[in-house]
């Protein structure tokens, strides 16, 4: 089954929409869902043109497609466990929060907190992702714990903060402090990064581009060839400010 | 080269020269009476007034240090220029040097110390660092020393209407703690040393 949601033109286009209801499983019972626009509750049909093609008996066969201006829609795919969502344009904050299964594909850019506290599943972002990509919540000890986030563009600051499990793969560059407070999982940045892995406890990070402002508290141990990336890298252990035992590989 | 060396040895090995070198007599060194010597203790009790330190023009020449239960000035001879100001200024006659004390006693002269506290109101932010840090304030009003609230009028200065106001300039001992603690350089202590003559004072005898 395929559900196409095309956003309507709104009087106040900057108002955020909170649409955690948009997950494939919910469309099994119809499209009568509630979302918030600002501080008002709205039905899905007040904000979207809804087209449904085909039928489905189980949620894993449901594909949700978002079209139009979706850059202010938050929480799409929150707690999603199966099925797939395709966003043709940009998407607002908190896309794929707590996601545990299924696939989200974003053809445009993603706003902050993409895949926050994710547990499983896959997020593909064809454009750039903003700050706090694949991270956790304020005060919480663990961020993303499983699954995969792949960003084909670049990300903002604090990418993969508190990463505890799963894989984060950035094809472009990451901003300031990628992998800060990392305690597990894998972070791959093909482009450049600034001050990576501050205060990391555990986990591993590979940076293929240039590292700016490398922190003084990483201990260089040896050089290693990384066959999957066809490079030789310096391997650092750290963060020693923090009894850390993480691995940071930077192209030699 | 070698010939000149031999010449030298010959020249200085002459008995006449050696004799002159060893036995020649010159007049003994005597300190002239008008000369001011290094200050020495007179045995009187130092009250830690620190006038000596403040009057001394040579940096690091005199220091008042702990001596047993009390205090005593200590002269650092390499720095002392023997001007004798410390002897003249001491209110308790702790130091002497040459004839300074006799002369002062005979002629009834002495040195008078006072301080001027100058506050630049444009620079002063009224932070009160100086008032709290000032050791005289701390003595006069423990509350002032513990956080800047004055409970009496015995303090040298306090904050009033956003600026420092000096109440008892006469109490200033010139320690300059306030200068050091002022972040803006808004406070300056000027030392005023005046000589004057008056009938013989008993303390100076």
């Amino acid at each position: 089954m395929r559900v196409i949601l095309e956003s309507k033109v709104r009087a106040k286009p900057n108002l955020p929409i909170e649409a955690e209801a948009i997950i494939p499983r919910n469309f099994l019972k119809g499209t009568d869902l509630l979302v918030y626009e600002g501080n008002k509750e709205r039905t899905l049909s007040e904000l979207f043109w809804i087209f449904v093609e085909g039928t489905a008996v189980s949620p894993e066969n449901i594909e949700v497609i978002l079209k139009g201006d979706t850059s202010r829609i938050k929480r799409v795919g929150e707690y999603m466990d199966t099925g797939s969502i395709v966003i043709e344009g940009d998407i607002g904050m908190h896309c794929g929060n707590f996601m545990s299964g299924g696939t989200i594909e974003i053809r445009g850019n993603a706003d902050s907190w993409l895949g926050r506290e994710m547990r499983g599943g896959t997020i593909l972002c064809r454009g750039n992702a903003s700050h706090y990509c694949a991270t956790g919540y304020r005060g919480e000890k663990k961020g993303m714990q499983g699954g995969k986030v792949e960003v084909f563009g670049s990300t903002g600051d604090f990418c993969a903060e508190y990463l505890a499990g799963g894989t984060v793969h950035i094809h472009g560059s990451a901003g300031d402090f990628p992998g800060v407070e990392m305690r597990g999982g894998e972070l791959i940045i093909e482009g450049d990064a600034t001050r990576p892995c501050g205060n990391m406890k555990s986990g591993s990070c590979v940076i293929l581009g240039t590292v700016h402002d490398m922190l003084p508290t990483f201990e260089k141990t040896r050089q290693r060839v990384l066959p999957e990336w066809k490079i030789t890298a310096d391997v650092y252990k750290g963060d020693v400010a923090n009894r850390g035992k993480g691995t940071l590989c930077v192209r030699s | 080269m070698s010939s000149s060396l031999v010449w030298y040895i010959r020249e200085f090995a002459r008995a006449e020269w050696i004799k002159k070198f060893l036995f020649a007599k010159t007049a003994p060194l005597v300190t002239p009476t008008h000369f001011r010597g290094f200050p020495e203790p007179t045995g009187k009790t130092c009250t830690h007034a620190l006038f000596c330190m403040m009057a001394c023009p040579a940096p690091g020449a005199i220091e008042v240090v702990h001596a047993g239960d009390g205090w005593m000035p200590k002269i650092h001879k390499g720095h002392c220029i023997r001007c004798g100001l410390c002897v003249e200024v001491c209110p308790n006659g702790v130091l002497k040097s040459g004839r300074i004390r006799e002369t002062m006693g005979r002629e009834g002269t002495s040195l008078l110390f006072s301080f001027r506290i100058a506050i630049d109101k444009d620079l002063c932010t009224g932070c009160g660092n100086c008032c709290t840090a000032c050791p005289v304030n701390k003595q006069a009003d423990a509350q002032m020393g513990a956080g800047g609230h004055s409970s009496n009028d015995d303090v040298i200065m306090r904050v009033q209407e956003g600026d420092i106001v000096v109440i008892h300039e006469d109490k200033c001992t010139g320690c300059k703690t306030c200068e050091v603690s002022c972040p803006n350089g808004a406070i300056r202590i000027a030392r005023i040393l005046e000589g004057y003559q008056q009938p013989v004072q008993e303390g100076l005898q």
Partner: protein
Amino acid sequence: MTEIWVKNACVIDPLNHINGEIMDIAIRDGRIVESVSDRADVIDAQRCLTLPGGIDSHTHVSGTKVNFGRYMSPEDMRAGRTKRKGKMHVTSGYYVPTTFGNSYRYSAMGYTTLLEGAMAPLEARHTHEEFTATPHQDMMANTLFDGNWAVMDAVREKDVRKTAAVVAWTLKAARGYGIKLTNPGGTEAWGFGEDLTGIHEMVPHFAVTPAEIITTMMRANELLKLPHSVHLHCNNLGKPGNYQTTLETFDIVPDLNPDRQTLYATHVQFHAYGGGTWKNICSKAEEITSSVNSRPQIVMDMGQIMFGRTMTMTADGPMEFNLHCLHHNKWSNHDVELETGSGIIPVTYSKKSAVNCIMWAIGLELALLTKNPYQCLLETDNPNGAPFVKYPEIIGLLMSKRYRDEECATLHPETEKRTSLCALERELNWHDIAVMTRAGQAKALGIVNQGKGHLGIGAEADIAIYPIRTDSVDPAREYRKVVEGFQKTRYTIKRGRVVSRDGDIIVDGANATFWVDAMVPEDLKMENDPEFIKRFEQFYTVRMSNYPVQDVYLPRGRRIETEVFT
């Protein structure tokens, strides 16, 4: 004039020797009376369990450190969020809920009176501000004296009268209720990062020992005729082998008051550990309870822990730092000048941890081994051992051996070897529970004559009606029903008004704050003591005139005046 007629109530009121009688209760203007007119609102209790309003004699719900617990835990605020509904404000949080969250949930459980366990006098104003935002319970605050310089000076001079005078002045300034000692002396030592290891060790710089502080304060407390006794959090909390310190402390408690205990020892579970390290820690509940059983002058509370996430917060700063060094999670510390310390860290009690399982068992052992339920009250030291919403589960555990056995089966295997819980057959009855959550608490706090903890004529009409039929429920087998029943009252009546029905708050609260104005002879008044004033103005960072809590902070303050001593 408001009147309520509660009929068909199955009343357990231990202080009036009523145990399960079906009777009616008449309420007029907030008090229980003989009878009411026929215009009274009628509540049919349908033979359900009806108890005096619940009392919590040691909880942390308001004040600096509780609020700091909230401040530093946005992650907890995601749990327990409710929207505004009728008279109810928005709430957030599970183990450190907002003030309204605390108040509503306590109310839903039938609790109408709370004692905030620790209030630093310097920050008392904060506690009282939060009290007014905790609207459905009458509040009291124990005032911290453990590291109070003026107290330690008076103790050093062995001057009980002066100690009493300092206590009286401070209680009045803080609008406090009773004396709280948290790790006495240890919090002062923590000012320089140290702790004390026993009750006979000298407090650095002050030349007094915790034992001296405790004994002098007990005498001062009785001299002042305060309603509550000294409320003590013993030294060495949470250290393996600390039961000896606890026993030593119990040994120095005289019996000074015929009406109530002389010492209230709080969260004793945390003070009943044998062994020497975390590896060989074991229960010493038997030793502790045998000491308490032979000393009527001591009342303790359980300090039960329950499994799950929570937040520990106490004035015992050094203990929290030690705990932090084990957990490596976030740690807050807040020492209060001249008075006390405090620390806050989040913890998770896990069934996988042998230590946590043993702690869990010790709390229950204490309650089951104490012969007189008036001497062991039901508490979790909320939220230290567990948030108070776990009380119903604890009641279930105490009433059902089967429930305990089922739980024990899921615990770390060491629990059975190092505690005797599994061997205890005792199952508490409804009356015991009523004592441990009402009558005993009121008696220990000295508020029975304020009309608390009982349902006699003239008592405050604080009543909880639970959806439990004691005649048909067998708590030993149907413990689930007991737990559910205690989670939500059918009616909670506070001072003659129905405030909560089936868990929903239906009116705006109007709590009162009890505080003690202890009288001292004219010549002992600290506000006239020049030395005291001088010291205050020098070493505190607020002026003495700005220190006392103004009356405006207690819009419904209830002042309890004591008799002046000679």
